[in-house]
C-alpha cells in the first residue's frame, strides 16, 4: 500500500478540517431557523470523502446521497454555493430548489446528490457507461451508506456494472446505522464487501477513519477502474456523530450501544491524522494556521452567500420541461 508523504497527509488533514468546520458552522447556525431544509451532517466521516476524492481529477465525476456535503466539498464544489443553497437563496448551487439534499456543481465534476436512498447509484453507473463509450479515461465515484446496500437497485446496478466492466467506484460508508436502526436489525452478520465481490466487483474493506488508509485503498481502486478492470467496491467503516438529520447530537435517545459514540470520537479522523502529523514533526503552529485560514474562508463564505437575493417567484415553475 502506498503511504502518503507528510506533505500529502497535511493536505488531507486540511481538506478534512475544512469539511468538519463547515459542518460545525452549519450546525451552529441551524437553530436560527433560516436554513429551512433537512440537513444530514457528516461529522466523523470526513476521511472517506477526502481520502477518495484526493485522487480524482476535475473531469472525474462524483455522485452522492442525502449526506452529501462532505463529498461535494471534497470534490471541489463551491462552498458559497453550498451555503447559499442551504439558505434557499438564488446563488445556491441549485438555485435554492434543492437544499441540502440535492447538491450539484458541474464545474467541479460533482454531478448530483439526491435523497431517495439508492436513487443515484444506477445513475452513476450509467454515467460511467457514457464515459466508457466516449473513451474518456474518467472514473465515476458513487458514495452511499450501509442502508443503501439493502436496496434492490444497488444489486441490479452491480450486475450490469460488472457485465460492462464500467469505470465505476462504489464507496459504501458503513456507519452501522440507517436513521436509528442498527445494522444487526437489517442485515445478517456477513461482510458487505464480500457480497459485492460475489457480484464480481473487485472489493475491499477498510478503516474509514484513517485517511491514509482510505487514500491508499482508493488509489488502487481508482487505478483499476481507470485501467478497464471494471467496477470497484470499497466498504469503509466509520461512524456519524450527529443525529441522522439535524444539527444536534442525539446519543441520549439510546439507540446506540452505551459508549459507542465516545469510542468512535476517540477514533476521530482529525485526531488520528493530527497525531500522525505531530509524530512527523509538523508543528502545532502550522495546524493552527490551517485552522485560521479555514475559519476565515467559512466566515467569508457565509457573509457572501447571505448577501445574495432570494430566488424570483417566477423561477418556481421554470425547468419542469426542457
Amino acid at each position, binding site marked *: 500500500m502506498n503511504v502518503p508523504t507528510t506533505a500529502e497527509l497535511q493536505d488531507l488533514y486540511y481538506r478534512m478540517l475544512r469539511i468538519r468546520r463547515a459542518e460545525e458552522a452549519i450546525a451552529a447556525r*441551524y*437553530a436560527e*431557523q433560516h436554513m*429551512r*431544509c*433537512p*440537513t444530514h451532517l457528516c461529522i466523523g466521516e470526513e476521511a472517506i470523502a477526502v481520502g477518495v476524492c484526493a485522487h480524482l481529477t476535475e473531469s472525474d465525476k462524483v455522485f452522492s446521497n442525502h449526506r452529501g456535503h462532505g463529498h461535494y466539498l471534497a470534490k471541489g464544489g463551491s462552498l458559497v454555493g453550498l451555503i447559499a443553497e442551504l439558505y*434557499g*437563496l438564488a446563488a*445556491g448551487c*441549485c*438555485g*435554492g*430548489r*434543492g*437544499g*441540502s*439534499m*440535492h447538491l450539484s456543481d458541474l464545474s467541479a465534476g460533482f454531478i448530483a446528490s*439526491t*435523497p*431517495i*436512498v*439508492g*436513487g443515484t447509484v444506477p445513475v452513476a453507473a450509467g454515467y460511467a457507461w457514457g464515459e466508457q463509450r466516449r473513451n474518456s479515461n474518467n472514473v465515476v465515484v458513487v458514495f452511499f451508506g450501509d*442502508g*443503501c446496500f*439493502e*436496496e*434492490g*437497485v444497488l444489486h441490479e446496478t452491480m450486475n450490469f456494472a460488472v457485465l460492462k466492466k464500467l469505470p465505476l467506484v462504489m464507496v459504501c460508508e458503513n456507519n452501522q446505522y*440507517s*436513521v*436509528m*436502526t442498527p445494522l444487526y*436489525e*437489517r*442485515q445478517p452478520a456477513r461482510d458487505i464487501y464480500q457480497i459485492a465481490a460475489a457480484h464480481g466487483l473487485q472489493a475491499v474493506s477498510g478503516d474509514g477513519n484513517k485517511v491514509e488508509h482510505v487514500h491508499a485503498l482508493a488509489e488502487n481502486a481508482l487505478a483499476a477502474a481507470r485501467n478497464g478492470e471494471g467496477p470497484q467496491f470499497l466498504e469503509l467503516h466509520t461512524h456519524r456523530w450527529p443525529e441522522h*438529520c*439535524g*444539527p444536534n447530537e442525539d446519543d441520549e*435517545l*439510546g*439507540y446506540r450501544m452505551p459508549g459507542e459514540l465516545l469510542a468512535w470520537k476517540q477514533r476521530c479522523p482529525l485526531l488520528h491524522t493530527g497525531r500522525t502529523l505531530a509524530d512527523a514533526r509538523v508543528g502545532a503552529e502550522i495546524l493552527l494556521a490551517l485552522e485560521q485560514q479555514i475559519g476565515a474562508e467559512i466566515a467569508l463564505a457565509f457573509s457572501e452567500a447571505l448577501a445574495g437575493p*432570494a*430566488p424570483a*417567484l417566477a*423561477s*418556481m*415553475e421554470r425547468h*419542469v420541461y426542457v
Partner: protein
Amino acid sequence: MSEILTLSYGAAIREALDDGLARFPDMLLIGEGVPDPKTIFATTQGLREKYGAERVLDMPLAENGMTGICIGAALAGMRPVLVHQRIDFALLAMDQLVNNAAKWHYMFDGKQSVPLVVRVIIGRGWGQGPQHSQSLQAMFAQVPGLKVVMPTTAGDAYHFMLDAIADDGPVLFVEHRWLHHVTGQVDKDRPAAGLSRAARLREGRDVTIAAFSHMTIEALKAAVVLTEHGIEADVVDMRCLTPLDVDTVARSVAKTGLLLVADCAPEMASLGHTLISRLYQRQQNALKQAPRLIAYPNHPVPTTHFLANHYYPGAERIAESALELLDRRPLLDSVRRQLQSDLAKDQPDRSFVGPF
C-alpha cells in the same frame, strides 16, 4: 355508554394499531423506524414493548422486496401493516403494490386475497423539496384493486385504521403529516364506515366545499370566517378515494348549486378533477356556475421556503373562491385579512422548529 376520547390524529393511529395488535393475533407492524426512538412521529410508540419484536419490527431498506414479502405473509394468513414515512419511498414498491397486491384477488379468480395495509405519509414543509413531499395519492387511486383512504379527523384515523386492518384486501392508508397534531374526538364504539363514504363535517346552504385530507382543515377554517359574513358552507370531507363518494357531494350540490373542490395534490389528473367530472356527468343542471378546483400547481415543490411559501393554497384561497362563486367580491379584503397568518407555510404550527 361509550367513552369518547380526545386524541391527536397521530395518537388515534397509535391507539388503532394498539387495538389492532390486541384484536388480531395475525397482525404484524413493520417498517423502517417502527421501533426506533422516534417511532414514526410517535404513531408506533410503546407497541414493540407491548407486543414483542416478532410482531412489531424494523425492516431492511428494501421497499419493493419487503412489500412483496408482506404480500406473501398476508397470503399465508398474516395481516401486515407496512409503514413508509414518505409516500415518495412507496414508489420503490410500486411493482409489488400494483402488479401483485392490487391484482391478486382478481387474477386468481377471487380465491386468494391480500390483507395488507400500507401506511404512507404525505406532507409538506421545512424544505422537504422535490423528492420528499409529493402527494401521489391519485396515482395509487387509479389502480383497481387497491383501496385508498385518506382520513382527516382523529375519529376517522382510528376507525379507518382498524377497518383497514380487518379488510381482507390491500388498503393504502394516506396520512397528511400536518394532521398528526390535530386533535379530535374518538368514539371507539361508533359504527364502522366500512372504508367508504365521504363525511359531512359542516352543514351549510350556500356553497359546497368538497375537500381532501389536510385541505378539509383549511376548508373548515375558511368556513368559520365565511359564517361571520353570513355565508354558510357545506363542508364535505372526501376521506375515501376509492370508491369516491359522489352521492354525498351531489346531495349537497342539489341544495347549494355551487361546488368548490379543494385537493391536496397537483391539479393534473387529480381526484379533484375526477370528482368534478363525475358530478357534472350526473347532474349538470344542479350547478348554477362552473365548479372551481383548488389544487397544487403542476410542478415540483422547490426546497427553498422563499418559493415553497407560495406553492400551497390554503384557507385564504378557499374563501376567496367561495366568495367569487357567490359573487360576493366586496368581502374579499376583510375575509382575506381575517384568514391571513404570519406563520410561514413550511411550518405546521409555532412549536415546530425543524428539521422534519
